[in-house]
């Protein structure tokens, strides 16, 4: 608000800036709007030449009923919830102590280890699919929930983000905790993690969004319909049942995306704070 007072909205720079933001926002939003629009249209209207958001004939109930009944969509969603919860829990469990060690402890090879975390951060996960697939095969977890979880347990991004946040916590707090008698692990869980809660929640949102939406690895790791997370389920649904029946397909997609949008909006404050702030104001 204070910025608009100083750089007035009328200045050409501000107009350009807002125009760019609006266009980008629109480009990102249009597919979603279209998806929602298609999910309430009857088949006949979907390929109509003229586009209107609101259908002439409201067909939402039919489409959504079909999406929920013809494919085991609730099952996919439950799978997604379960897998994402497991992944986030495991990631925090692994990343917090690792990040603490990298941020606050002195040991030989620390910089090398951190460099390796950074390299892992740059590598796209897809590169590792084949080795991970073979590993999964060797330990015999393919086509189970474990197969969907294990590749993500160690998150370089989580380690990096937590480390940056932990670094902003003053050493004195850790010294005080040691004098109070806390062990190093107790310091991680009772002092560092609670103090870094915004960062951890932000990371949790990132992680959930990423894994809820992921298609590539589940496609490789599971074949059993009962294990499939939502996007893979929808794809299977499309192939087997829907054919060209885009209405129910879009309805299913909307149902899958909705929880994410709701979760993100309600946790937005944490998200911004966690990615930009430090522990101590």
């Amino acid at each position, binding site marked *: 608000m204070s910025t608009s007072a100083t750089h007035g909205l009328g200045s050409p720079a501000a107009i350009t800036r807002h125009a760019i933001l609006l266009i980008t926002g629109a480009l990102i939003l249009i597919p979603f709007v279209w998806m929602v629009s298609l999910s309430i249209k009857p088949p006949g209207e979907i390929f109509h030449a003229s586009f209107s958001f609101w259908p002439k004939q409201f067909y939402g109930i039919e489409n959504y009923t079909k999406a929920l009944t013809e494919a085991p969509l609730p099952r996919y969603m439950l799978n997604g919830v379960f897998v994402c919860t497991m992944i986030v829990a495991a990631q925090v469990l692994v990343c917090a102590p690792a990040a603490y060690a990298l941020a606050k402890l002195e040991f030989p090879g620390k910089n090398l280890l951190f460099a390796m975390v950074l390299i892992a951060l740059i590598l796209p996960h897809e590169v590792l699919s084949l080795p991970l697939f073979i590993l999964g095969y060797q330990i015999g977890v393919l086509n189970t929930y474990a197969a969907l979880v294990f590749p993500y347990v160690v998150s370089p991004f989580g380690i990096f983000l937590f480390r940056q946040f932990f670094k902003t916590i003053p050493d004195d707090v850790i010294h*005080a905790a*040691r004098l*109070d008698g806390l062990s190093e692990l107790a310091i991680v869980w009772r002092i560092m993690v609670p103090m870094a809660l915004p960062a951890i929640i932000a990371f949790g949102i990132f992680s959930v969004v990423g894994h809820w939406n992921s298609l590539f690895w589940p496609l490789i790791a599971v074949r059993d319909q009962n294990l499939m997370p939502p996007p893979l389920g929808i794809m299977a649904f499309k192939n087997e049942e829907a054919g060209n029946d885009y209405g129910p397909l879009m309805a299913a997609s909307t149902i899958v995306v909705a929880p994410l949008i709701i979760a993100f909006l309600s946790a937005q404050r944490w998200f911004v704070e966690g990615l930009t702030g430090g522990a101590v104001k």
Partner: protein
Amino acid sequence: MAGITIEKIEKTFGATPVLREVSLKIADGEFLTLLGPSGCGKSTLLRILAGLEVQTAGSVAIGDRVVDGVRPKRRDVAMVFQSYALYPHMTVQDNMSVPLRMRRLTAWQRLPLLGRFLPGTKATAAEIERDVIRTAKALGIGHLLARKPGQLSGGQRQRVAVGRAMVRQPAVFLMDEPLSNLDAKLRVQMRAEIKELHNRLGVTFVYVTHDQSEAMTMSDRVAVMLDGELLQVAPPQEIYADPDDRRVAEFIGSPKINMLEAKLRDAALADAAGTSFTVAADAGPGTALTVGIRPEAFHLVETGGPNVLTGAVRLVEHMGSDLFVHLNVPGTEHPVVARLLAERAPQIELGQTLHLGVRPERLLIFAADGKRLRPQGHAGAKVLPIKERMQ
């Protein structure tokens, strides 16, 4: 009991030496202040005492026990940090309970949810709560127990930090500039309170500060530290009146001591600033010396002569009962500052020529290397070397 013996502690960070051969013996129940300018290694020494940092060489004993390699928790010391280092996500009560919970409850009993139902947890927890409340009341923060540190003022946070250290009744208190974040008025008040706390608890206090008024008012003994070296350890009065080293004399005292560069004329007389001073130095004629004169050592005299500085008044500062007179004395680098009784004030005008006399026994003579030169026979009990002074 819990005195502290520090034996030739050295500490280097990388190649930078931060502490050089620091040796010090602190008696049980003593209030010892580590005084020195910023960056001289005070906090580092304190952290070594607490076990939070490992010394490069040397050894520390607390009581009869050598504690090198002993974890901080097992040293029976508590520390108050300059930044207070409270846990921001816990209430005041939880902050103060942590050290007790860690000591009195077993790991199983501390488990969240489950621990509550183990035998004994309830009784111990109640005991902890009682102790915390008692300590908080003693510090006047009983009404703040439910608040978080973010909702407290600086002075209140400081009390919580003291409370967290006090509640477990350690044998040694380490305090690292606990008052430096407070405003001047509160600082004076807390100074008295900490001193009172020391009298009441009777345990050993090691108090770090760069504020000499804190050091002078609170301590049994002051250890002056500079560049990682202990220059002198003595009671406050002695540090002020009888410094061992030029740097100590310059660091202590406000306004600063006047230092005049002098040349020895013969064994009993040195020339400086256009006059001559009676000194007793065991050195040949022509030796360079420094003559130190505390501002309050001056008194007004009628005419010039030996042991009298003459100059024009440059500035007069009224300080209530005293006044500081700055004098331009030919042959000196800085103006000479004298502290005179305020009753003289009406008589002193800018530009006026004043004669300031000083009695020879109030001159502090330093050799070129900064060591104090003492007149023969003056030595005696007051100026034993540091090592012999320790019991």
